């Protein structure tokens, strides 16, 4: 796959609006606006519970949650594949039900499963998508998309002759065929090997650099951490929180300082009781948890007090909690 930017023109926006983008406080330029969305499936199962969410123009938003959390359901409602039980979605200023034509023509969807027409050629299936979304034929655009996705050589191949990775790229090409300003990627790297995953991330970034707003779902924390500007954590149909990724890491990113002691300790001396300390490895390790986001981490004081208490150490290291830890603790908190 090439790393060149994918040929997707800027979504139309007027200069006044663009100026407003830069000055306006974050969150005021929502391109997708979900309000009080709930979904109860026919069997009575509630897959979404009162979800409200704003996606900002031009960002990469990761919807992070375990299998069955409701990610696909949320995307499917926005894209018109599932009827909402209640609530409302506005995409690029258009209500997805009342103004479904205007809303949908701005949206591209790459679903989780690889649904392809085995007997169609790459060129035919991508051109079909463009027509379906109401755009006049534009072979130049289709060519650009296929070249950027490294599918140009395969344009006359039937889909059944393509590998899984290529099929997924065909799905992306279909979604980009009508030049959407908003792209939904449902688990774009599920079951994809490491190398392809990196290529996918690069591709997503180049799309964003071309002005496309991207909403992707994933259950890989690593992926959200790598890709997203903001992360929404969803579990059991509830949106637990939405944060800037860096803010999330700063706020919730606890660090741990582990000291490997020369002599094991039986208990933490009372003189150190003010610190959040724990003993580990049968008293051979002293673990200090602190907030990496704070200016005063307390490390300097701790080291001074350790010296005073005559506790000496051979080595030390720090660990930063990953989004994984954050997620696990969030989910635990919620229960």
């Amino acid at each position, binding site marked *: 796959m090439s790393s060149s930017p994918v040929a997707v023109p800027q979504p139309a926006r007027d200069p006044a609006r663009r100026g407003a983008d830069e000055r306006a406080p974050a969150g005021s330029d929502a391109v997708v606006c979900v309000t009080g969305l709930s979904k109860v499936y026919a069997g009575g199962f509630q897959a979404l519970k009162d979800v409200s969410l704003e996606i900002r123009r031009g960002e990469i938003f990761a919807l992070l949650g375990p299998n069955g959390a409701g990610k696909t359901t949320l995307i499917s409602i926005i894209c018109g594949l599932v009827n909402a039980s209640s609530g409302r979605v506005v995409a690029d200023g258009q209500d997805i039900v009342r103004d479904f*034509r205007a809303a949908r023509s701005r949206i591209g*969807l790459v*679903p989780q499963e690889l*649904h392809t027409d085995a*007997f169609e050629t790459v060129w035919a299936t991508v051109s079909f998508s463009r027509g*379906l979304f*109401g755009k006049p034929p534009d072979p130049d655009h289709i060519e650009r998309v296929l070249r950027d996705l490294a599918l140009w050589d395969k344009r006359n191949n039937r889909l059944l002759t393509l590998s899984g990775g290529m099929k997924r790229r065909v799905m992306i090409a279909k979604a980009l065929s009508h030049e959407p300003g908003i792209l939904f990627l449902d688990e774009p790297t599920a079951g994809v090997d490491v190398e392809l995953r990196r290529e996918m991330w690069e591709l997503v970034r180049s799309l964003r650099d071309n002005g496309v707003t991207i909403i992707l779902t994933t259950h890989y924390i690593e992926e959200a951490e790598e890709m997203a500007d903001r992360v929404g954590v969803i579990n059991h149909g509830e949106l637990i929180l939405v944060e800037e990724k860096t803010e999330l890491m700063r706020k919730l990113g606890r660090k741990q300082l582990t000291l490997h002691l020369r002599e094991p300790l039986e208990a933490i001396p009372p003189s150190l009781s003010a610190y959040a300390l724990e003993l580990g490895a049968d008293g051979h390790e002293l673990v200090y948890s602190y907030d990496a986001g704070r200016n005063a981490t307390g490390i300097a004081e701790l080291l001074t007090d350790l010296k005073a208490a005559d506790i000496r150490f051979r080595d030390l290291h720090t660990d930063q909690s990953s989004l994984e830890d954050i997620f696990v603790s969030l989910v635990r908190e919620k229960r």
Partner: protein
Amino acid sequence: MNWYAIRAIYAYEMARARRTLLQSVVSPVLTTSLYFVVFGAAIGSRITEVEGVSYGAFIVPGLIMLMLLTQSVSNASFAIFMPRFSGTVYEVLSAPVSHYEIVLGYVGAAATKSIILGLIVLATASLFVPLQVNHPVWMVVFLVLTACTFSLLGFILGIWADNFEKLQFVPLLIITPLAFLGGTFYSIDMLPPVWQVVTLFNPVVYLISGFRWSFYGMADVNVALSLGMILLFLSVCLTLVWWIFRTGYRLKP
């Protein structure tokens, strides 16, 4: 109106037929031709004329109808069942197309295919039997209305069916028997009195009667009644399709 979308669906469906030419054109034309060769020759040698028309020519309108019904239903039902089955229907459902546009694309293509088939069979028949078409405009009207109505029925079937058995059940066990008993091979007058009444409950009787009238000017039932019945089926199918899309039946959870 999203004309590009209608065109995309329509062109896609027509391309599918071209790809499977043997199955979608050659097979139905051959089967129907065999019918009028075998029935026309074998039975036609005994029953020489029905109301002044040679038996071989008499059965042609009915045979065309027979093929039109089964082909419309199976074409349209496959057209929407396969994308549902393979999952590719997600794209149509997420596109900025209205229900009417989806129906126009799929049903329009299915109806076009059956009309083309009907005309091919008609041309083939004219090689074997002396045909005359007294009311060509009405013939086309009956042809088009029937193709559209039964393509709509097929579309409904393709959405209702959740497996291949159901998909084949309706054409095989309902449409074909009704068509065979609908007066393709006989005029209603030839039946015993009781059956003459029972047969009026078979909707296909009206279609075949009207269509045959456009050829030879003779009909089992009044032509206006035939036309009325077709329009009635058409509106029933349209209502059903409207309901399907309004409720998202089998399409949107």
